[in-house]
C-alpha cells in the first residue's frame, strides 16, 4: 500500500487539529452553559436606586434623617437644623448600615458600635475612614441628590 501510506507528519498535524477543534468546542459549550447561570445569580439593578433622588423638605424636619437608596446603595440624608447633609449609610468598617441617633446627633453603626458625626468623621469605634459625603442641593421645596 505505497499509495495509502500517510506520512506521520501529516497525521500528527491532523491529530493536533482535531484535538484543537474538540478543545475549542468543549470550552465553547462549557462557557455557553455556564454564562446563563452566572448572569442568573448577579444582582438585578434596581431602577429606583439610580440617579436622582428627591425628598420633600416637609418630610425632613430639623433633627430628623431619612434612609434612601442612592445609586444602588443606602444613603442617609440628615437635616442638622443648619442645613442638609447626605452621607453613605454603609459603615466603612464591615458594611453594616449606620443609623441616625437624634438625641446624640451622631450616626451609629449597630455592628461594632462605630460612631460618626454629621460630617461623617469617625468619633469612636473601629471604622477605618469617614463616611463618604454626597453633594445636596435644595430647590423648589425639595432636597435633591444627584442628577443635574
Amino acid at each position, binding site marked *: 500500500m505505497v499509495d495509502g501510506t500517510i506520512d506521520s507528519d501529516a497525521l500528527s498535524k491532523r491529530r493536533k487539529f482535531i484535538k484543537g477543534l474538540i478543545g475549542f468546542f468543549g470550552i465553547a459549550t462549557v462557557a455557553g452553559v455556564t454564562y446563563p447561570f452566572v448572569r442568573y*445569580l*448577579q*444582582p*438585578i439593578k434596581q431602577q429606583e*436606586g439610580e440617579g436622582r433622588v428627591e425628598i420633600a423638605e416637609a418630610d425632613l424636619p430639623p433633627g430628623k434623617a431619612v434612609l434612601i437608596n442612592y445609586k*444602588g*446603595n*443606602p444613603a442617609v440624608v440628615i437635616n442638622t437644623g443648619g442645613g442638609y447633609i447626605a452621607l453613605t449609610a*454603609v459603615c466603612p468598617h*464591615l*458594611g*453594616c*448600615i449606620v443609623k441616625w441617633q437624634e438625641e446624640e446627633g451622631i450616626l451609629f453603626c*449597630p*455592628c461594632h458600635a462605630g460612631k460618626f458625626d454629621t460630617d461623617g468623621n469617625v468619633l469612636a469605634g473601629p471604622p477605618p475612614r469617614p463616611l463618604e459625603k454626597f453633594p445636596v442641593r435644595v430647590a423648589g421645596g425639595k432636597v435633591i441628590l444627584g442628577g443635574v
Partner: protein
Amino acid sequence: MFASKKDSALLDWLEERFTIKEELEKNTTKKMVPPHINWLYCLGGLSLTIFIIQVVTGVFLMMYYKPTPELAYGSIEFIVKEVPYGWLIQRVHSIGANTMIILVMAHMVRVLFYNAYQKPRELHWISGIFLFGLTLITSFTGYLLPWTQLSYWGATVGTNMPGSAPIIGEWMVRMSRGSEQVSGVTLTRFFALHVVVLPAMISAFAGWHFVMIRRTGVAGPF
C-alpha cells in the same frame, strides 16, 4: 453475629447474584481494628453522627420555615411555640451546629497532634480542610435564616469579607448577597445553599474522606 438460618439464606441469595461475601467479610466481620485505637479516634465518626442529626432535624424545620424577610422569624416562632416538639427539633438543630464545629475542630487537632495527616494521608487532610470550610459556611448561612438583628448583621459582616480580595472582591460580595446589601434575595440564596448545595457537598466530600480512610487504614500506632 449469631448466624441464623434466615441470615445465611438471604446472604446466599445475594452471594449468588453479586458475590459480595468476600467484600462483606473484608469490610465487616473480618475487619480488624488496630489495637492502638483510643477514644480520640471517635471524633470523626461523631462529626458524621451530628451531621446526620442536622440533616434530619433540618428537613423537619424546613416543613414550616418560610425564607422571606417578612415571614422567616415568625415561622420559626411558630415552630418553637405552636408545632408539637418544634422547640425540641429547633433546639437540637441550633445546638448541633455549634457541636459539629467543635467536634470537627477537635478531630483536626487530634489528626494534627498524631501527625496522621502525613504521607500516605495527605488527601485525607485536604478533603478534611474542605469539610471544615463547608461546615463553617453551612453554619454561617444557617445563622441568617431566622432573620433577627444578630443574624442580619452577621450576614452583612460575613458577606463583606470577600470584599477584601483584590479585583474580584466586590463582585464576590455582590454575588453572595444577590443584591447590593443583604436583602430578601440574600435570604433565599443562603437558604438554597444551606439546605441543598452545602449538605450535598459535605456528603460528597465525606464519602470521599471515608473511602480513603478505608483504603489506607487509620493512622498509627505512633
